[in-house]
């Protein structure tokens, strides 16, 4: 039995999760799969236990803010790695801004603890069942989530770095 490739992963995941696979594509050899957010925890647990897919390593958890896409403002991205097949895999869940709850995967990967705390700290994603969801790099009494796009880094009146002049048209920063 040879090593599995991205297509095998996609087929297996589609077969297992059916209509919870909302979209998929491939970016620079890494498979991106968008899942129903509430199913991500179980999907990762299944992938981790699976004999052949054997996704044994959690590389990273990231969040991305897309303020303009209504109903799916926040993406939570799980980057996973199967050493057996040397396949990297990205699972994504999109959350609406008024319901930022997603199931924590700290019960599957102990290393997810701080990754999730960091994601909460910067984006305000709430990981349900996390043992200790507090801010980690910022002050405890900070009252906003600084990586969201509405918090501009510099003085908004500055024009020399205005995005309008540099290839981006409709951002309001």
């Amino acid at each position, binding site marked *: 039995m040879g090593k599995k490739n991205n297509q095998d992963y996609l087929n297996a995941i589609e077969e297992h999760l059916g209509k919870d696979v909302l979209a998929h594509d491939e*970016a*620079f050899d*890494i498979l*991106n799969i968008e899942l129903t957010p509430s199913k991500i925890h179980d999907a990762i647990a299944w992938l981790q236990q699976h004999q052949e897919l054997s996704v*044994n*390593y*959690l*590389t*990273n958890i*990231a969040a*991305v*803010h897309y303020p303009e896409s209504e109903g799916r403002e926040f993406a939570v*991205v799980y*980057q996973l790695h199967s*050493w057996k097949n*040397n396949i*990297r895999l*990205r699972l994504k869940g999109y959350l609406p801004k008024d319901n930022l709850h997603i199931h924590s995967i700290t019960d599957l*990967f*102990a*290393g*997810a*603890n*701080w*990754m999730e705390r*960091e994601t909460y700290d*910067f984006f305000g994603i709430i990981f349900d069942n996390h043992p200790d969801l507090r801010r*980690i*790099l*910022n002050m405890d009494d900070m009252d906003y989530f*600084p*990586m969201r796009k509405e918090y501009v*880094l*510099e003085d908004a009146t500055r024009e020399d*770095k205005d*995005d309008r002049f*540099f*290839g*981006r048209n409709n951002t309001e920063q």
Partner: protein
Amino acid sequence: MSQENKDIIFSPDPANIATINFGPTHPSTHGIFQNILKVDGEKIISSEQTVGYIHRAFEKLAERRPYNQITPITDRLNYCSSPINNIGWEMTVEKLIGVEVPKRVQYMRVIIMELARIADHLICNSVIGVDAGALTSFFYPFSEREKIYELYEELSGARLTTNLGRIGGFERDFNEVFHKKLKSFLSTFPKAFEEFDSLLARNRIFMDRTKGAGPISADRALNYSFSGPNLRAAGVDYDVRVMNPYSSYEDFDFIIPVGVNGDTYDRFMVRQEEIRQSLRIIEQAYNNLPEGDYKADLPDFYLPAKADVYNNMEALIYHFKIVMGETDLPVGEVYHAVEGGNGELGYYLISDGGRTPYRLQFRRPCFIYYQAYPEMIKGMPISDAVLTLSSINVIAGELDA
């Protein structure tokens, strides 16, 4: 302390439990991070970490900077091996824009990255010596690291925060002084290194102090997403250079050392062996250094020579476009990982076609494995906690981003 002693269940009298601060500023934290320890005499019952003292919002900063201005940010992640961070970032951008750099650039990068790895491991290991009480072994390697810094200096003009290399290659080729210094380093370093090794590796006092200090099993290390020397010390042979070779690492013959117990002594020994292997890689790369250009043909990203900017209209236009960040970038999502001094250093970049990243996340190995620290030091005496901290090589810059 042995594993059996660690497993003894404590039932301390609450009146005997003391709460002490280990850090934020403490000589043996080698950076600013706080651990609040609950101790019963010398034994640590539990600990709680506070991190973020030098958080500088790199990810937010990166969203406001053109790609070439992000390289200096990456210097300040793991500042013991800045060139690896720089080159990792450059390769991420090259992946996004789809450029193949000349073979010579790849070999030059390998040489620089392995020099950086040597500098990183050398400092980490000599600091383990300091925390075990051996100061001599701390002073010797510094003159060797100095030689590596002089090599950086020839290539980038800087020593610690190197901002080394450019998107598409290097700012300048290896010059004559560099060749001379590298040759002299390659011939003198092995002897000096073995001398350093002989001070600690089989030193009875050092071994007694470090064996069994802060162990972690392979299983737990994997579950905590460990990477780099700390994971390999626990017996797992994961190395990005082999799993996903970049920059022509597949051309070189080297082994990945692994430990058995995942304790401080194994971490020390793994790093020592990695230094030897890095040296082997440098020799192979340097002896087979291909002819060619030290940069890719990439006028949209690579700044033209200054003399051309003053005398040539075309060069001036490109200079202006690059400096003002007017280059068109592809839309895409890239993850690129390199084997940093501490493990898998990853760049997760989302580009929306604008001149700055839409989102850039750093996978910082320190941040990920430092969370296992309370588990590693539970039941240990405080002096072992100090050793464990220095042997997992937590670099505050990388931890806090």
